[in-house]
């Protein structure tokens, strides 16, 4: 039994000792690695429980904020409600079945006011965030990439940076009459500096790397080098800065309202609501008027901060395992 097996094995082995066919292409395919930057970033971002939680929370908040007016049975945020029976305004009604968040001192429905206010503040935050991003990137890119302008632009930056933000904001809000556009303009004027500086520093670090020299050697104009070679590296950082600026903007809005330079009272905003609530916070039964807007503001702020930081960590390639 053994001999034929052995012979068979030997014979089979002998056949194996012949030269194999050689496929040069096969060798080329050897080193393929399937790492994807964005896939890894997403994976790392979603892996943390806190990120997921806040992502869901913020998502729900945002969704509801913009959907709320279309939900049946909602009231207008500015209408003053009167009790049909007595003809008196529903002032300072505590939260209950009729008015879910209660009413304020002149009889307006707090529930709809809060959502309307959140919409306004978010709109300001997002608009300002977007504008800051565009202005900041444009300024920072030119500053960082065009060597000849570096001196001049650094001086401009230094001058602007030294003006206290608070003073400038107050000045602008005071000069132009309070309105939605004023708020947006004032905050844009102040907020883009930080991002510009950051973009500029990153560009200075990257601009002399070999792949950028190669692009210059190939005749690529500066505009396209910045757009395709440099900015893609800065995406994660820029998104972080923008994510952090939104709660910052809302914070400034609250502050300006506090010192009387915010939006006109007719337009509900988180700043106005917090301010109104602050004025009557001494009476314990009326505190709800302060608590509700404050809680919403805090939730939004915390969510953006947490998500912004998580994203920044996740998008750093050094953290990708």
């Amino acid at each position: 039994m053994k001999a034929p097996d052995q012979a068979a094995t030997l014979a089979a082995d002998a056949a194996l000792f012949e030269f194999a066919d050689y496929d040069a292409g096969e060798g080329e395919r050897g080193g393929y690695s399937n790492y994807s930057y964005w896939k890894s970033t997403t994976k790392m971002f979603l892996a943390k429980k806190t990120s997921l939680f806040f992502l869901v929370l913020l998502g729900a908040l945002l969704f509801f904020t913009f959907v709320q007016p279309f939900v049946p049975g909602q009231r207008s945020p500015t209408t003053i409600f009167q009790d049909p029976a007595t003809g008196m305004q529903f002032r300072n009604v505590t939260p209950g079945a009729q008015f879910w968040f209660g009413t304020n001192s002149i009889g307006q429905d707090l529930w709809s006011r809060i959502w309307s206010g959140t919409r306004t503040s978010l709109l300001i935050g997002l608009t300002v965030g977007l504008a800051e991003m565009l202005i900041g990137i444009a300024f920072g890119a030119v500053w960082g990439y065009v060597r000849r302008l570096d001196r001049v632009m650094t001086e401009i930056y230094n001058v602007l940076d030294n003006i206290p933000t608070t003073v400038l904001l107050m000045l602008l809000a005071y000069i132009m009459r309070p309105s939605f556009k004023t708020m947006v303009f004032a905050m844009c004027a102040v907020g883009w500096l930080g991002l510009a500086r950051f973009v500029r520093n990153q560009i200075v670090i990257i601009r002399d790397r070999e792949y950028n020299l190669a692009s210059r050697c190939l005749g690529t104009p500066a505009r396209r080098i910045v757009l395709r070679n440099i900015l893609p590296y800065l995406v994660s950082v820029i998104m972080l800065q923008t994510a952090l600026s939104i709660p910052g903007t809302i914070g400034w809005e609250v502050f300006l309202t506090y010192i009387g330079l915010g939006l006109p009272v007719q337009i509900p905003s988180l700043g106005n609501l917090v301010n109104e609530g602050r004025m009557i916070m001494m009476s314990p039964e009326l505190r709800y008027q302060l608590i509700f807007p404050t809680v919403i503001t805090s939730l939004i702020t915390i969510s953006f901060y947490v998500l912004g930081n998580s994203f920044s960590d996740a998008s750093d390639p050094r953290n990708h395992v």
Partner: protein
Amino acid sequence: MSAVAAEEILLELRDLSIDFKLKGGETLRAVKGASFAIKKGETFGLVGESGSGKTTIGRAIVRINEASGGEILWKGRRITGRIDRELDLEVVRKIQMIFQDPMASLNERAKVDYIVAEGLYNVRRDLGEAERQALVEKALLEVGLLPEFASRFPHEFSGGQRQRIGIARALIMEPELVVCDEPISALDVSIRAQVLNLLSTLQRDKGLTYLFIAHDLSVVRFITDRIAVICKGDIVELAETEELFARPLHAYTRSLLSAIPVPDPRVERARVPIAYDPSLHDYSRQGPIWREVFPGHYVLANEAEAAGFGREFG
């Protein structure tokens, strides 16, 4: 290695100097009065250690660095300083560069087809999408890569493959002169041969001229026709390759030659490296000038040293 066609001079450096401004206001003279000419079809080697200025010269030729003195001539026309748009475009088309580090010389966030076609977007705006893609495919095949690689990102490839992408990127422009800045130093040993073979094949097929910048004399010996040796900004010697190895004149060249490790245990263990001591030159009475000591063999030396060389090899 290549037939030098009718001694046409493609590129000439005349007394080129390049300064860099340091922090604190000081100037560093990285290249001092360099002069040499590169003939069409040849492979010209520029050899020196780190900080010698060889990369600086290479980058000045492709107009990445600015010249502070002297000039560079391309087919007789000055290409240093401000030049008109038309000449600039010609330089971009005709002179290209291959960089040292394959890990840093490709845009990680762009696909291979954009990387290879980038130059075409700049100089061949007449091309349509399909024609451009066809050229990219052809370029990839010429360097031994598969066309399917065009839709991938650089990080998916090995160092040798990335370097070949860089070569495809330069060659798609159809240049006449290619400045190769240490193209194989950052590669693995077995990949170096691949890339060297590729470079010589491409030279033969396309009639290219190379300026090969390197620090490894043994590699340079294999592929160059003439070699210039550069030491701390000064070009100290220039000769045909075998002539340089047979009759090295300048003390720095001799020291460099004695320092090359040889992959042969018997020879290597017997090798004694000579250190270069700049103070051994006595330039108190007469400074060195660039002179032709033997036909085609130039050295930076003074009268006394030149006479010494004559006696040694005469």
